[in-house]
């Protein structure tokens, strides 16, 4: 008996339907809200594809934090006094691009169907390396992120920092050094404060737990860090904590600690384990968890700063 194929089709239909709505909605804000809803539906798709780590990341980062970012932007843009009337492109252009889009989608779909059987996979290599380079980690994705392809992960942390500097750089010259403004609410409403006081401690505990179990079960530094970042944003939006100044030394150290610790151990690997970014065998797992802890710190600091925007001189928006 299989209800599953029907549920799968319904899920696929919903995802596509909301995606179409996002593209075709007239109102900017409606499109943004549609996108957030679509992101949550995607998390279910990931679960169906046997990717719980990805589902967690999609829900936390792809839909959650991105949602806050886009909704903040949508509200600000929707409140423009004279939004320029959007010039609708001519119908022939729409048809032309529509045909192009259908061709691209069709070619891609065909390519996916023509992928070879038996499918090549690195799962056997990952399983074989699990005890040596994989440091005995039970979660193979963590092994990939933190050991086999740790260079990519370290670079990606730096990309995050660079994005933070990029976001800060679009602020005004005279505002440099002060705190950003996007997460500031006009006043802290009682429900928001209540939510923050109730939710934040629980959320922090869950976030740390998700990071810690990521060594052997679905989870990890990104997912845990994203949840902690969300809790910090909730606290700041409830005005239980102030947005930090961007020249605050603790903020700078927190942001850069992840990639910095990663680099230190990466360089040390040449001496202790014979190759850059290698770990000495007996200490591999503790080192990985140590690096991940700082990665969590970096992510917790970086994600809210990316949403909070450039420094602003006005005391409130």
């Amino acid at each position: 008996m299989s209800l599953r194929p029907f549920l799968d089709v319904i899920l696929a239909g919903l995802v596509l339907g909301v995606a179409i709505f996002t593209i075709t909605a007239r109102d900017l804000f409606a499109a943004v809200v549609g996108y957030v809803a679509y992101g949550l539906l995607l998390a279910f798709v990931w679960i169906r594809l046997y990717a719980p780590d990805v589902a967690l990341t999609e829900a936390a980062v792809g839909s959650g934090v991105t949602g806050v970012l886009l909704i903040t932007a949508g509200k600000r843009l929707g409140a423009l006094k004279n939004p320029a009337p959007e010039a609708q492109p001519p119908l022939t252009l729409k048809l032309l691009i529509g045909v192009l889009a259908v061709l691209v989608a069709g070619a891609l779909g065909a390519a996916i169907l023509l992928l070879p059987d038996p499918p090549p996979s690195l799962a056997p290599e990952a399983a074989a390396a699990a005890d040596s380079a994989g440091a005995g980690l039970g979660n193979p994705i963590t092994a990939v992120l933190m050991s086999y392809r740790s260079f990519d992960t370290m670079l990606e942390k730096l990309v995050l920092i660079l994005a933070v500097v990029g976001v800060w750089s679009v602020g005004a010259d005279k505002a440099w050094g002060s705190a950003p403004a996007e997460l500031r609410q006009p006043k802290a409403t009682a429900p928001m404060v209540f939510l923050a006081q109730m939710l934040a401690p629980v959320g922090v505990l869950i976030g740390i737990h998700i990071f810690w179990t990521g060594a052997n079960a679905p989870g990890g530094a990104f997912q845990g860090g994203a949840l902690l970042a969300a809790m910090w944003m909730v606290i700041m939006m409830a005005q239980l904590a102030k947005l930090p100044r961007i020249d605050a030394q603790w903020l700078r150290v927190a942001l850069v600690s992840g990639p910095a610790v990663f680099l230190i151990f990466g360089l040390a690997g040449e001496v202790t384990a014979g190759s850059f970014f290698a770990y000495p065998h007996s200490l591999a797992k503790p080192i990985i968890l140590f690096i991940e802890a700082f990665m969590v710190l970096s992510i917790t600091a970086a994600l809210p700063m990316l949403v909070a925007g450039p420094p602003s001189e006005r005391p409130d928006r």
Partner: protein
Amino acid sequence: MIAELGTTTPDGYLLVLAILLPLVGIILSFILGGRSPERVALYSTPFGFALACAIAFHVGQAGKPIVYTIGGLPPPLGIALRADGISAVMLIAAAVIVTAAAFYARAKFATPHGVRESRSSLTFWIMLQAIWAALTIIFVGGDLFNLYVALELLTFAAVPLVCIDGRPETLAAALRYLLFALFGSISYLLGVALFYGAYGTMDIWLLAQRVQATPVVWTAAALMTVGLLAKTALFPLHLWLPPAHANAPAAASAVLSGLVVKGSFFLTLRLWFYVLPALPTDKIAAVLGWLGSAAIIAGSIIALRQARLKLLIAYSTVAQIGYLFLVFPLATGTQSWGAIGWSAGLMQLLAHAFAKAAMFFSAGLLAEALGHDQIAKLGGAARVLPLTFLTIALGGLSLMGLPPSGGFSAKWLMLQASIASGQWLWTLPILAGSLLAAGYVYRILAPALSDGQISLESAPKRSYEAIALALAMIAIALGFAPQTFFDFLEIGRPWRLGNHD
């Protein structure tokens, strides 16, 4: 002979050091803040240059690429770095241009007195080091996904430089650049996904041994190429480049036009000559050649009609990028003219990088000295700014392809390769491009050399003029490159792989 490229060679650690140097610089700049980013960046430039030279020396000595498998884990599970002839040469070029830009930028981006930390200063020095790091990874990376992360690093570093002065037109240009670049990266990533789905690896060397001419591979290659073309601003995906490069500050424009667009082009070379040489690529090479020809003609004609100097130089970049894509029809295949075409393409890459950087530096000096960059009002300017206009003349020489210059070598080699390969049709855009380039260089120099009274708002410092002149002279000096230089470029190039004749 297929070299063994899957295990670490003894000097491979240099590759990691070359990448980590600017990355450490970024972290130090960010933590220390204040006036440190400028110092960190400037002090690291000689070390970066030394590392690039060391890598080139080792590659030349070994006669084959140097390899490093990160973490000691070889591909397909791990990531490998590989430096061959063209990597080493590009690393040196990047080190020189970044160093020049760093010293040139001290005038505008040093932290002003009395201020602990300034926005433009921190941003510029961090982004410059990030561009350098990203380019280093692009030149030595051996894993397609690693290269994707490097491309994103490059984009995130280049975009804020475009809008660093905060004017609305630069913000709009930066936004358009960002969206094009993001489209490019995601198209590239989609191609990588298909390659992995088909062959279970993203390592360039392993893929080269496994690929076959299936629809999946063609789709993946097409997706990656379109993405890289968007990032390289090849006609018709070039719309984002002129406003972005023309409105950025001069030091940034020099790096953007000289190096950043070359990064994605370098990856296009890696894709077609290193991953896919086993495929029958003649038709695609011809398409790329046609698009390049269109870029040469269109870019040069639009450059002729520009009123602002920096826009003219930016459209000239669009045109000169077109020459780069003539490498594809001229270097594909295993005949001897392939080596000539290959040398021609690399020489064009290098000559344009130095010449264009020199021209943007000069345009910046000129704009500050005269208060504007309107070509119509340049009458008699050469008399008051002799060194600057000498630089423009020398850079223009290379862009036009007149001897002696790197640009001349490049175009001469391209002509040789087209005739030797029987594809004489390519000689037409090459020659037409030179004529049109002569046209727009004349447009700049003629009023400047004429009799006219012009007054300076401020005199440029000699040291900055000297930096620009030095880069232009390197572009000229490339014209004297000996045959050993071209042999060096051949190190590591797979031109007999798979089931070719």
